[in-house]
């Protein structure tokens, strides 16, 4: 399971303030904490706190200097994205994200090639969010084809079927699960499949339970990545257990501990 830590995002007040005052400490703290909990990537997003490409460059640089972890450069704005990629200085990374929009694909696929990163594509297009599994598959296939044509191998492509809040769009969850199953047939080996996990539990009371349950259900369909709260110990334990049951990890009595330790420094 590829865990992408969501915490370095200007949607959180401490990070927004850090970006505005150029205070590296909160960013460092979260980079270290999430890495210790086994994050494979750290998502980095300046959100609404800034529109300045140099702020993204600062944030990426601050993370890069704090930990050896891979970085997920998260922006919908191409200029901000490129500033972030430039600041990677060779660090392994992923672009978060493109859509099936041809204009976006034409810009972002070459950037992934140029900076040698993976590319995360969310299954929406100019028509907006997908209403069902079919549209999710259609959009993902467009992204997948464009990425392959551009020279990215399946291992560098991450598809996101777009997870909706359970509380407000309950009918969408089965469509997401179905789309995940379908994505696994796109190639052999299949592309990676990821969701923005916290979205499913927006404004619910049983947050942790819904997150873990969805995650485990999705893993059985082929989900192998998630942008998530890696500080959620119960969620990590559920992932570790699901990986065992899917025979992707070797059992040991201390397997939950081993799941974090296996990633190592």
């Amino acid at each position, binding site marked *: 399971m590829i865990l992408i830590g969501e915490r370095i995002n200007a949607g959180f007040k401490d990070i927004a303030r850090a970006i505005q005052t150029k205070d590296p400490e909160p960013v460092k703290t979260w980079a270290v904490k999430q890495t210790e909990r086994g994050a494979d990537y750290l998502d980095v997003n300046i959100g609404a706190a800034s529109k300045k490409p140099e702020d993204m460059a600062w944030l990426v640089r601050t993370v890069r200097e704090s930990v050896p972890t891979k970085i997920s450069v998260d922006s919908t704005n191409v200029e901000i994205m490129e500033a972030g990629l430039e600041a990677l200085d060779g660090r392994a990374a992923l672009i978060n994200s493109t859509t099936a929009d041809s204009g976006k694909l034409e810009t972002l696929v070459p950037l992934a090639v140029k900076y040698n990163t993976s590319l995360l594509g969310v299954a929406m297009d100019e028509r907006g969010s997908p209403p069902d599994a079919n549209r999710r598959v259609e959009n993902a296939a467009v992204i997948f084809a464009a990425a392959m044509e551009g020279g990215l191998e399946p291992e560098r492509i991450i598809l996101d079927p777009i997870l909706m809040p359970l509380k407000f769009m309950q009918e969408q969850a089965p469509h997401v699960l179905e789309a995940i199953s379908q994505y696994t047939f796109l190639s052999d080996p299949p592309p990676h499949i990821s969701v923005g996990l916290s979205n499913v539990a927006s404004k619910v009371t049983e947050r942790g339970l819904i997150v873990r349950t969805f995650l485990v259900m999705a893993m059985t369909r082929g989900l192998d990545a998630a942008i998530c709260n890696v500080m959620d110990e119960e969620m990590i334990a559920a992932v570790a257990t699901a990986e065992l049951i899917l025979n992707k*990890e*070797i*059992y*040991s*009595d*201390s397997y939950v*501990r*081993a799941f974090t*330790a*296996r*990633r*190592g420094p």
Partner: protein
Amino acid sequence: MTAQIPEVKKTWTNPIHAVTLGATDKEGGTRTSTITIGGETTLPFCHFEGEMPNAPVLAMEVWDVPATDWPEPIKEPFADVMADPGAWAKKCVDEYGAQLVCLRLKGCDPNGENKSPEDAVSATKRVLESVGVPLIIWGCGNTDKDNEVFPAVAEAASGENCLLGTITEDNYKTLTALGTAYKHKLIAESPVDINMAKQVNILALDVGFPTENILIYPSTGALGYGIEYVYSIMERLRIAGLKGDKVVAMPILCDIGIEVWGVKEAKAPQSEVPEWGDAALRGPLWEAATAYVYLLAGADILVMRHPQAVRMTKETIERLMGGTA
């Protein structure tokens, strides 16, 4: 018409830990050379696919007491030196080309000669003075006695960066503490059980002993005695390590000699089973054949006994590494 051969190369994400044994005077020890093993980025000898930067190495077994119960074919080459572990080790290195010496403290066994920790220390010192290669020091196998002997032995060999063994799921605290205090590496033992192999590593990690300083000993079976079970466990451990599980991405040690020379196919004299042929040839061949299998499964250190088997295995390693032996 030429058929297209599909691309079958695999790239793995995580290298096996490289481990260095021994310390020269520059590194605070007295060894004349060190040995580095591990560091593979692919399955054994798949040179077309990745790196195998360090060839597997051969250790020869030396005891702290004469090995009176060894069968004739392995007693005979050492008959003149068995009374002195130092001379025994020197013969292994100088005459038979051992790259490491594995000192087995068999004499400390309470069911045998029940030698004292002081005796073990003097045997260790004798070997350290007599040879310049790195040392493996293996306890007698009695947990309580080993925990009494190792503190003295680990201290006496302080700074020499030896490989001490073994830790198990039930007994790891003494040796991990000694390994940290006196800078030695450790052998993690499990009884042909992949889950326990992983568990003992995680237990060591939890008491602060870094996984980079551990070798896996998944138990060894002689050819004809469960070798296929051990093989598949070694293979699965190695694949998991290469795929990114750092808790099992360690070099692997196989204890060949002790297993092979306990089975009748290797040790029975020709007088008992004439149809099996010359025991002087059969035994070493059995040992070498067992070693070859483990090389292919991913062994990084082989502990062996018969000089002829050592020579054959060394030549095989050179060939498998792309040499011209």
